[in-house]
């Protein structure tokens, strides 16, 4: 039966053939395939893990304010961030803020930055003093209570792990002994561990009866700009939107920690491209003879280049999936052994990066395609 009389499935059939050849080339030599996928996976893991750290730095630096729900933050005049500057204003100002038209309520917060001993090391901490019941303590607990009273404190789980303390234990902080009543999570702001204590205790630590910040909630329909103008007229303090303060914190973190991480991500991505290029090129060169046979038999471009590209695609996808697993494993191991930094491998981030890595690998995959294009079909006559 001549082939012209046989039902043909056209391009779909040729693409299926290309996929079939690519898959068989990859899976026939399992050891090589595993090594190639592993090399790509390591490159993908480094990129994913580092980018996860970058995402965590960004998200964690604004987590406290994001969870507060406040529309405005009042600070000492000239201070426009939460995490780094030391703001202080008299408690009496709070009453004046409450009188500004449009303000529903303002909750005081006392913040103290410091370095404290934890186990065999010292860690940066951010002590938040809040009035129990106003909701400005920890927003997510691992264990214990979110409401410290008197000489009690809620500590971040990373801090608790490194300091080796649990609920019920006593710890020394800023020259005071406190009892741990709760362990919080999600409260590590880019390596600055949040600790939560009653407002008056934080004032004792700060050595002053001042307030650091006022978290302002507006009445429905109130004009934000009018309220800001009203607060700014009080004197000695200024009001900024939560987004502005959070943005300033985020920018500081990003420029001091995030940018170096991003540089590492780019370096890892470039290294990944080189690894991918070498791996994919080698995998194709190994099959030079097979491609020459395909050419001699009369295989068209779809099959020839398609199988080389699909080989790159299949390897890349497997590499990314394996890399994701490795990155998640490394993040989990780090979290278990030394939870100072975290890597947020959110699905949207992984999906976005996977797309970038696969696209970059496919670009590297053009190298083998170029090789296939140059193969002389007369290779088939060589003994």
């Amino acid at each position: 039966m001549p082939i012209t009389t046989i039902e043909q499935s056209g391009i779909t059939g040729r693409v299926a053939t290309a996929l079939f050849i690519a898959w068989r080339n990859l899976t026939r030599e399992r050891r090589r395939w595993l090594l190639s996928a592993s090399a790509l996976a390591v490159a993908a893991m480094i990129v994913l893990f580092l980018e996860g750290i970058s995402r965590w730095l960004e998200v964690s630096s604004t987590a406290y304010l994001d969870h507060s729900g406040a529309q405005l933050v009042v600070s000492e005049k000239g201070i426009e961030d939460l995490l780094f500057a030391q703001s202080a204003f008299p408690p009496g100002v709070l009453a004046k803020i409450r009188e500004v038209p449009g303000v529903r309520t303002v909750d005081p917060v006392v913040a103290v930055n410091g370095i404290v001993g934890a186990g065999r090391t010292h860690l940066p901490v951010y002590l938040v003093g809040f009035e129990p019941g106003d909701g400005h303590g920890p927003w997510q607990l691992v264990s214990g209570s979110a409401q410290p009273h008197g000489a009690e404190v809620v500590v971040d789980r990373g801090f608790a792990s490194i300091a080796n303390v649990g609920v019920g234990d006593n710890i020394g902080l800023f020259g005071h002994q406190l009892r741990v009543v709760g362990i919080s999570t999600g409260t590590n702001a880019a390596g600055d561990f949040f600790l939560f204590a009653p407002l008056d205790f934080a004032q004792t630590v700060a050595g002053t009866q001042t307030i650091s910040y006022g978290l302002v909630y507006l009445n429905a329909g109130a004009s934000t700009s009018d309220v800001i103008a009203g607060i700014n007229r009080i004197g000695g303090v200024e009001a900024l939107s939560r987004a502005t303060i959070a943005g300033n914190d985020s920018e500081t973190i990003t420029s001091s920690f995030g940018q170096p991480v991003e540089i590492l991500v780019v370096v890892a991505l470039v290294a990944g491209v080189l690894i991918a290029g070498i791996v994919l090129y080698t995998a194709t060169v190994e099959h030079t003879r097979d491609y020459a046979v395909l050419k001699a038999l009369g295989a068209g471009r779809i099959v020839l280049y398609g199988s080389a590209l699909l080989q790159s695609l299949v390897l890349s996808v497997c590499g990314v999936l394996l890399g994701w697993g490795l990155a998640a494993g490394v993040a989990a191991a780090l979290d278990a052994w030394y939870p100072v930094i975290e890597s947020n491998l959110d699905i949207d981030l992984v999906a976005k990066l996977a797309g970038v890595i696969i696209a970059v690998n496919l670009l590297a995959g053009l190298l083998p395609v170029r090789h296939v294009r140059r193969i002389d079909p007369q290779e088939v006559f060589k003994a």
Partner: protein
Amino acid sequence: MSVLEARDLTKTFGSGEATVTAVESVNLSVDSGEIVLLLGPSGSGKTTLVSMIGGLLTPTQGTVTIDGIGRLYQRSDMAAMRLRTIGFVFQTFNLLPALTAVENVALPLRLVGVGRRVAIERAGVLLDRLGLSHRGHAYPGTLSGGEKQRVSLARALIADPRIILADEPTASLDTHKGREAMELIRASVHQGGQACVVVTHDTRLTDLADRVLRIEDGGIVDG
């Protein structure tokens, strides 16, 4: 009318004083069901000639027609023409190691877009005809030399080509297996009506050819 007509086929490599003429003014015609044996030592131009006839190499001069239709070497669909009109049998079999015997045989059909089921079915029938149905799912690495050459022949025949080009088809086989393979090619060609050119340096195969031509220094010296 001849199935294959080669007229004034010439191939030179290099330029100026470094020009080497591999094949010079070769004329060849092969009829349907005819086996032509091209005998010649290494370097005589056999493979270059077969490459030009098979559309793998563009001649410097001359034409090749198949069933009266001229081969235009610059045509972008030359590969497709090769796929539909020529079946190759190679000295080293050139089976894809990642595919089973039946998948290797089905490959030319799959390359033109024939669905997997139909292609495999037809390859199975052909392997059965060549006495290899029991080895269909074996990978080339596990086949003997004779079995590989039969698979290679089945692959050459599956797309019902007009021409079979065999390059040293017995060189990798012992005398007995080589003769067996050649007899198989002869039987298939006589049954299928293809025009067949076999290039070899093995003079023991001459009795299996319909015509024997000798090639030396790029030219056919008798026939």
